[in-house]
């Protein structure tokens, strides 16, 4: 198992009332597995997260990218800058 922390921001953090979520993922862990685990643990995010992407170490990552415990993960959805 890989323990990962996913950072949340903006409305995603507000709805979960947390700025980070800890998850345990079976190895080899991919971004898609992280997203699946995140939405399973917090289904209230699903509706808001249409088109959501995972950033790994501050860069957008494809869903098949493998992740490691030392990676910094962030859920990027509903951005609203400008």
């Amino acid at each position, binding site marked *: 198992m890989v323990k990962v922390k996913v*950072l949340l*921001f*903006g*409305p995603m953090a*507000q709805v979960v009332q947390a700025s980070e979520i800890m998850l345990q993922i079976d190895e080899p862990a991919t971004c898609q597995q992280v997203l699946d685990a995140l939405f399973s643990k917090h289904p209230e995010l699903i509706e808001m997260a249409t088109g959501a992407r995972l*950033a790994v170490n*501050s*860069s*957008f990552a494809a869903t098949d990218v493998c992740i490691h415990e030392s990676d910094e993960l*962030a859920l*990027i959805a*509903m*951005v*609203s*800058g*400008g």
Partner: protein
Amino acid sequence: MSVEVQLVQGPLAPLAAHDDDQALGTDGQAGAFVLFEGIVRSTEADQPISGLQYQAYEPMAQDELHKLAHKALKDHDLISVRVWHSKGMVAVGKVSFRLLITSAHRKQALAAMDGFIDALKCDVPIWKTAVYERSCN
């Protein structure tokens, strides 16, 4: 060709004269100077607000702004792209976003401006939350 990106705490200060000069350069190549400023409106969903609270995921926000700026430079053959974005609280009426583009001809700068802002709203991890005025009732 040049790019500058800044995330600034709070509202953006008015554009200084030297910013205009720096954008235009001294070589006489710039024929167009296009400036866009985003200003915080007084209402959100028809409710009065006192301002917007911006949250940025740094340094990714900086990196994505740099990528967008360099892409705009290349795609539209621009001379310079300078972008400022606020983080933290910005009150109603204050500037929270500024994009300044120079190019040889106006069509390049105008096209780049629109494309940059559309991409910003998709790819740059910055979120805003309305801060509503307190009711007196």
